[in-house]
């Protein structure tokens, strides 16, 4: 995590997107291989069964 945090510290002026602040360097694509395996186990239909009452 510290490496990730250091890599994403603001370093340069904005190249134009609003022009008013520093931007972070591009975020390296994280390694989510394990997470993709977890996602494959998610029941594709679970949201269809998920029914709640309206709350506030």
């Amino acid at each position, binding site marked *: 995590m510290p490496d990730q945090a250091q890599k994403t510290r603001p370093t340069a002026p904005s190249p134009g997107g609003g022009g008013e602040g*520093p931007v972070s360097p591009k975020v390296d694509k*994280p390694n989510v291989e394990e997470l993709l395996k977890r996602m494959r186990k998610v029941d594709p239909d679970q949201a269809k069964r998920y*029914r709640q009452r309206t709350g506030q």
Partner: protein
Amino acid sequence: MTPPLIQFGLETEIGIARDTEGEVDVVAESIALVRSATQPGVWMCWDYESEDPHADMRGFRVQELRQDADEANYFAQDAQRELSQAEIKSDLVLGNGARFYNDHAHPEYCTPECSTLAELLAHDRAGEHILMACAKELSEQSRTTVRLYKNNTDFCGHSYGCHENYLLPRSLPWEYLAQAMQAFLVTRQVFAGAGKFALEAEDRFVAAGFQIAQRSDFFSELQSVDTMQRRPIINTRDEPHANPSLYRRFHVILGDANMSPFATRLKVGTTALVLEALVRDPKRKYPRLAHPLAALPAVSRDQTFRWELRLQDDVPSTALEVQWAYLKAVKDLCHLDHPEQAELVTDWETVLADLAADYRRCRDRLDWTAKLALVREFQAAQKIPDEHPWLQSLDLEYHRLDASEGLYYGLEQSGAMRHVPDETASLQAVQHPPASTRAYVRGKCVQKFAGAILSAQWDHITLQGSDGPIKLSLLDLFAPEEILHYAAVVDAARTPDDLKALANVPS
């Protein structure tokens, strides 16, 4: 270093499901979940007498809320449950100063009042720990898995909230507050949205598709006191839970429940700073949207991520430009001498610049960008079409309160998220109240004298003394030195009678 001017807290309604055949009675599940809490606390002593959700900030009291008819129906249904109303609510006041209860059909966790963002993040995450412990307990008792979701929708138009509360001086006129906050709240979703793979209306699923916020489909009024139907961008409920002649509570109902602590921090922190700017100069001109109700879903659903909108007089602008205007006001007016406020402003600037450059730069901090990037990656690998309901199932799983199953937690575990809070602080917050607010008095009374507590509310607590009830008013307890004094008395007290000195303090 002056303490932050504005105190805040979160109240989060949680979605609940169970791995079982057939329909789930979500009310019964919600009651059972709260009643499975193992944390020490005081049960069923919440004082509802002093609540009045019909009081309106605009100076009147509404005859009825739009939800009153539904509430009456639910009340009639609940009367068949062989439980008293108190048992159905199952209010629990915890030793960390939080409130945990069944709010109609959702377990609701209300953080204690916090004066710093670090406290708030610790207590928001503490709530997740407490909820997960309840789910584990209930799952073991019933031998079926109970699933909890910190999100805001079932994708079929049933939305539930994550409300924010900000304590403000009453001297800030309501009209200025309501007008100035509108454009800020509509546009802050660009960083505060939790992302959603569905387009909905108030009562139904509309279509597949991605949008940046969960709640933006559910608002159809500019201002009103309602919270369940025809929800307003600006909620006018006037329940300060504090001395009403000195304070008002700004009750924000349009935000999403965030999994990312960075997003929670940015959402609450920037809102508190904009409110502080407003307190310091109520007459400053803020951006005014031409069509706020239309802009809210339009910004959320904009697939270009440029978030163009129109200001008054048909002036073209963008959500990001509106945010920059508020950020400038904060820099001009707020005393940013508390380190966490200065850091927050830097993060706010960086996020706005990153979103303008390429929203994917924010996938390590914001919920909607993290969710979108992750799901798109999976979608590409599995060749899932955009309309497939699997995307909603994955969306739901992003919000699952289960460290070994939930996808947001998986991102944290893989090192993909920044600003993951110190787990020590959140585990401590499960047991202990914030030391800097009146919640300390509530929490410590629960810890030390649970058996003597007769009733509790945000602004008071009543204990049984040897010669009668002792009511501690917390209505005016916000000055740091006074909180320290109360804390010292509560810490030293050996019996409730030792608190009588506080009960005699005029408020």
